[in-house]
């Protein structure tokens, strides 16, 4: 079925269809419509909506609900996303599946409440303290708000990780035709099949797609944000800490093929490659269509983990790589890591709350 909806509406609708049954949130422009829709729809499907006292409470409440077995989500924007960082780290450390939608606006501080940006790209990766991998997805338009929300829920449940969906104000409030599928495949986490005495919550094979216990199922599980051993109990010795860190890293690195998601439009004759994501990629692609020169193009849908290998391969032998984005050059830093010194990096940035235009990108392609 095809309908004209906004990005925020598409996101909420996808969340419900993906099986999200708990939403804890705090109002913030430009994400509020997601909370409002969830408040209206969740009771209808027997789920829980609660408006918490702040974003810290919101992230903790969804972690609690998810640990108790209910697929959970929150939605926020810059200031709230900053407040959630410690909780996102807790979800990563305790391996609790949650989806955090950040409808990006300008910053820092209160910044630009009603205007869009892509300035939380690096915060999504490095916003929490400590070092651990992160999964973040970026839609280019309203249709992808739907599909990537579905995917965010699925990844979070399969890998027991927090997944960040980086939308932005432009997409959140923009209306486009979305084709909604009749049926959506939903991955349901499986309950352990072993007796409680045999069950180990962080067992080596208890990672990708594995069954895992929730509260209230008789498995006496222990969650702790401290570095812990395989039963969740905190312990301070170096080998256990290494094991714990390695486990968090492996679940992302061992699953790169599953996580990686790019739109690639290569052209063997092109001496220029565009790398972009999200709404800026719309203008970038428009510019590619407007120029008569051959241009290679990659748009990352999964931005974290960053598609290093793919960008490296596509950039190889090119004269230059053009990186359009709506911040002060955060994506350019990532791309720079991946390209050789023989390739010129052209960073095209706009950070004033307005949409980067195809014309601005086109100038860089001259």
């Amino acid at each position, binding site marked *: 079925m095809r309908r004209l909806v906004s990005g925020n509406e598409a996101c909420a609708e996808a969340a419900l269809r993906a099986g999200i049954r708990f939403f804890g949130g705090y109002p913030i422009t430009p994400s509020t419509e997601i909370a409002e829709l969830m408040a209206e729809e969740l009771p209808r499907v027997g789920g829980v909506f609660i408006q918490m006292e702040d974003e810290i409470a919101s992230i*903790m409440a969804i972690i*609690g609900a998810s640990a108790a077995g209910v697929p959970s989500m929150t939605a926020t924007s810059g200031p709230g996303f900053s407040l959630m960082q410690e909780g996102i780290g807790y979800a990563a450390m305790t391996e609790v599946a949650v989806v955090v939608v950040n409808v990006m606006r300008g910053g820092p501080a209160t910044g630009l409440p009603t205007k869009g940006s892509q300035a939380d790209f690096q915060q999504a990766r490095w916003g929490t303290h400590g070092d651990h991998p992160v999964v973040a997805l970026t839609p280019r338009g309203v249709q992808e708000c739907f599909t990537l929300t579905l995917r965010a829920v699925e990844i979070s449940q399969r890998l027991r990780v927090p997944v960040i969906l980086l939308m932005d104000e432009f997409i959140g409030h923009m209306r486009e035709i979305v084709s909604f599928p009749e049926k959506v495949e939903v991955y349901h986490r499986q309950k352990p099949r072993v007796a409680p005495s045999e069950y180990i919550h962080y067992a080596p094979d208890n990672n990708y797609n594995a069954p895992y216990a929730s509260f*209230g199922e008789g498995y*006496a599980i222990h969650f702790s944000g401290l570095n812990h051993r395989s039963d969740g109990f905190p312990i301070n010795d170096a080998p256990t800490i290494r094991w714990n860190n390695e486990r968090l890293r492996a679940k992302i690195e061992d699953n790169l093929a599953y996580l990686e998601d790019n739109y690639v439009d290569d052209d063997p004759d092109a001496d220029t490659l565009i790398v972009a994501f999200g709404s800026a990629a719309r203008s970038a692609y428009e510019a590619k269509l407007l120029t008569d020169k051959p241009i290679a193009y990659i748009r990352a849908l999964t931005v974290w983990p960053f598609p290093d290998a793919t960008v490296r391969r596509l950039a190889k032998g090119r004269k230059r790589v053009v990186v359009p984005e709506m911040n002060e050059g955060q994506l350019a830093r990532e791309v720079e890591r991946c390209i050789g010194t023989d390739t010129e990096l052209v960073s095209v940035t706009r950070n004033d709350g307005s949409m980067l235009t195809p014309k601005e990108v086109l100038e860089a392609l001259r």
Partner: protein
Amino acid sequence: MTPAKASSRKTSFSPMIHSYLRMDERFPHVWCPGCGIGIVFGALIHAVHELKIPKKKLLLASGIGCTSRMPGYLDADTFHVLHGRALAAATGVKLARPDMEVVVVGGDGDMLAIGGNHFIHTARRNIGMTCIVLNNYNYAMTGGQQSPTTPRDMFATTAPYGAIDDPVDACLLASGAGAAFVARTTTYNFVQLKRLIKTALSRKGFRLLEVVAQCPTIFGRLNRIPTPKDLVTWIKAHTVTLEAAKKMDAKELEDKVVTGVFVDREVEEYSERYARLVKKVRNAH
């Protein structure tokens, strides 16, 4: 926090207490000898046992601090959350699984400073849970800094000249926020402590129990009351019952801790209200 040394004596814990603990190499536990936390933990286990709350239904959540290390030792579902955030996380658990018996423990800093906002709002919403604030008058885990309950003129490492802040009253705060059950006791009074935990566990909505407890290692030492016995005696000397307090004037009550039940009322707890809302919405369609 100094780790407790493994006792050379053979410990004779009651087998009942043992049956509620994760008896593996986690012991010895992290708490100091003479600490009040064990008394509260013991009372909680007795209360759970006497009320026959099935382990499978029990969740013990906590934030960060000495007190908050409790869940790690309990053989039930346990949730050691972030500093100050246990009530918010426990709210998620309770709404996801209203059939679970949720207990949240934390220190005075955890619950009333960094977690103060969650404390107010969890009480206001009357989320169904028992919240035990262990008030040892300081931030023990981090070495004795001033907390929101440090009494005026007493010492902490960040109040080296004596505290000039007025302390907060957890029971008044919870009452004002709308909690269904509010009570206070001390570790001196184990019988009342156990009874109040049982009462709290039998009520609906948000139930606060503040327990004034000794931290001899840090608060006691900084305030020249360093032995557990002297500190418990000091707590007792400053305690008056609610009945006795009614006959005392403000001046006499100035440095006193009033114990007893301040609020005990019937409420429809949040998850019940929510279930009713779901029913209403679904019937309308």
